[in-house]
């Protein structure tokens, strides 16, 4: 875009102020969308004949009012941090990995396979091997769309959608054939599942050290998730790969001219994203269940996309966004017990929140881009119709979508 060229030289002098402006803009947009969601939620609550203040405070009380509540919230947030990070890593490079869903399903299969086949290994080594197997599973599943994107130009959105569907069948196959339980679990032999994993292959409960009930299944995977967020932040800000991927994400043309190997950068991002996605299901099978059940929790990958938007693709923002999501999810319990409002209200609230986040960020970004453009001396030319390509605000997804299917076209010629 021409505007990139115009904005760049001026940006050197004004970098700090525009950076701060972006942050404030994002925060305002986030607060505005939270406000919209809570307001819309209030309307619903009133329609059910209850007081919004009571309902909201009971939600907060259930999630943040006790050590147990906080434990549950953090346990819910753990897989979401991994999946949102997986999404964000690709966003930075202008790629839209909506295949996190399939990647973590496959990873659960490879992890379960490692648990059962390598169960003879001593505890800590087994856990490490299992986590590596999970990351490898996610990477393999992410490599397919990555390689196809780089080699043939097949658009990653379409391929990852298809890979997600294939993964669902793959899990069903694994549970029916190679990993099907050999000795039926007592009492509940109707459900298809794998054998129980060896005790040493499970991740330990850390809730007990903080006075949290074991029922929350709070595990040290939370610390792993936070560490992953810090590593991703460091990688994006301080390493060559991070720099190159941001370059590819914001302007593939300039990146190429600057000597960045676009294909290899994109493929590496996909692999890192897949590795992170691989860890999404671990809380579920290693901390919560201790086996891979047929009724595994789905949609963690898609929810991760929502959390990534909420956290603005910023690794640290993602941690808080995942906790916010957990607070709302945990609030269901309060609604069930104390209120006439159905528990599905929470999902509606989350839905409205994410819709308003998407829209307000879009508006905020355009405003911001227009303002920064104006300051750069190009006012009037593009004005408010500054396209989504301009600097400022969240980057990744728009670029991914803007070129949606273009690559497919190119591949035909």
């Amino acid at each position, binding site marked *: 875009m021409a505007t990139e060229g115009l904005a760049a030289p001026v940006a050197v002098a004004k970098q700090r102020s525009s950076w701060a402006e972006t942050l404030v803009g994002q925060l305002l947009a986030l607060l505005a969308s939270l406000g919209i969601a809570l307001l819309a939620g209030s309307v619903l609550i009133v329609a059910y004949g209850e007081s919004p203040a009571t309902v909201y405070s009971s939600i907060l009380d259930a999630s943040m009012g006790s050590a147990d509540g906080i434990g549950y919230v953090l346990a819910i947030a753990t897989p979401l941090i991994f999946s949102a990070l997986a999404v964000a890593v690709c966003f930075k490079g202008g790629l839209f990995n909506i295949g996190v869903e399939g990647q973590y399903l496959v990873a659960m299969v490879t992890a379960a396979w490692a648990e059962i086949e390598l169960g003879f290994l001593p505890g800590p080594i087994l856990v490490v091997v299992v986590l590596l197997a999970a990351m490898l599973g996610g990477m393999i599943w992410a490599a397919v769309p990555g390689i196809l994107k780089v080699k*043939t130009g097949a658009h990653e959105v379409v391929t990852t959608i*298809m890979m997600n569907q294939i993964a669902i069948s793959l899990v069903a196959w694994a549970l029916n054939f190679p990993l099907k339980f050999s000795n039926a679990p007592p009492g509940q032999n109707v459900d298809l599942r794998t054998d129980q994993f060896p005790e040493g292959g499970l991740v330990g409960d850390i809730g007990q050290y903080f006075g949290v009930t074991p029922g929350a299944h709070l595990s040290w995977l939370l610390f792993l998730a936070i560490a992953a967020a810090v590593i991703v932040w460091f990688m994006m800000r301080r390493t060559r790969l991070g720099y190159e991927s941001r370059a590819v994400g914001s302007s593939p043309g300039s990146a190429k001219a600057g000597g960045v190997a676009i294909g290899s950068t994109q493929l590496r991002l996909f692999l890192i994203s897949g590795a992170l996605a691989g860890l999404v299901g671990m809380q579920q099978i290693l901390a919560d269940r201790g086996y891979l059940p047929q009724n595994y929790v789905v949609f963690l990958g898609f929810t991760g*996309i929502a959390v990534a938007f909420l956290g603005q693709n910023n690794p640290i923002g993602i941690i808080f966004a995942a906790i916010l999501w957990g607070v709302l999810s945990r609030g269901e319990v309060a609604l069930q017990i104390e209120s006439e409002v159905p528990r*599905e209200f929470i999902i509606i609230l989350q*839905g409205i929140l994410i819709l308003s986040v*998407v829209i307000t960020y879009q508006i905020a970004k*355009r405003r911001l881009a227009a303002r920064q453009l104006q300051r750069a001396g190009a006012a009037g030319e593009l004005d408010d119709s500054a396209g989504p390509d301009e600097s400022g605000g969240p980057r990744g997804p728009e670029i991914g979508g803007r070129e*949606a*299917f273009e690559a497919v076209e190119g591949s035909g010629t």
Partner: protein
Amino acid sequence: MPFTDIAVALQISFTYFTIIYLTGLGGLFSERSGIVNIGLEGLMIIGTVTGAFGARFFTDTLELGLPWGPILGLLFGALCGAIFAGVHAVATISFRVDHIVSGVVINLVAIGLARFLSSAFFNGQSTQSDPGGPHLARLDIPLLSSLPGGLDRAFQSLSPMVLVAAFMVVPVWYALNRLRWGLRLRSCGENPEATRSLGVSVPLYRYQGVLLSGAFAGLSGAFLASEVIGNWREGQTLGLGFIALAALILSNWNPIRLMFFAWLFGFATAIPLRLNDAPVISALPPQFIRMIPYIVTIVAIAGFVGRVRPPAAAGKAYEGGGGT
């Protein structure tokens, strides 16, 4: 292998064809107008819950009986699908949110909204309704349903909606290729700037395309819930919205070719249900057969076989006219 098994598999494939084709047509209208719609699955989900409710409500509560109750139920599902697609339309057209982002959100929100609606519709049951809802009388297709050798089974006791879907290709093809409306809709998807310069409102046509996609996907969902299964159950769409998307891509966004791929994928879905004992197939786990449509699609978009060319402007933000 007896012919009857093939015939029954064919009969099932017609039902899946109906679901996939109707949803695929929805995607066709949206993408031909320039708005990528990966939210088809979510739109279908809304169709299933509202369609199942509508069939019961119009038939039993309003005592309209057959066939008007089920028909209105189907239309109610289509209407609710269109309303929900309005969210995608507003986000992508008016606010210029990325199409993929909005589509993902649509799919995500649909599940929660379906549970919420379900608990409101069906006395607090959030994941299913009572089985055995009203549906249209089944019909045998004349002539074909008296074929010899067991093949008659394929054309017996089909829902009338199968015929509606099959003949839908005529008005859709005509509207897209022979009416000024269709020409304009398609040009919005190919070259919105040129379209605008002719004095045509691009957002207006895109809104129509997206709302139509919701109506078709909603109709398809309503058909699945009330005509095929008989009640609403969470997760009953089973990724058929994504299969429809796959069929749409392979069809090159063409309603006639879409018929073929919708039927082919419908048949692939029917195989594990009915043809388990056939040679070759019996050696494969049924889960692998379910993967076929998706693998074929990946191979096709990777350009290994044939070529697919989507509408040129699909997925791109359009800056001129309308919007914020």
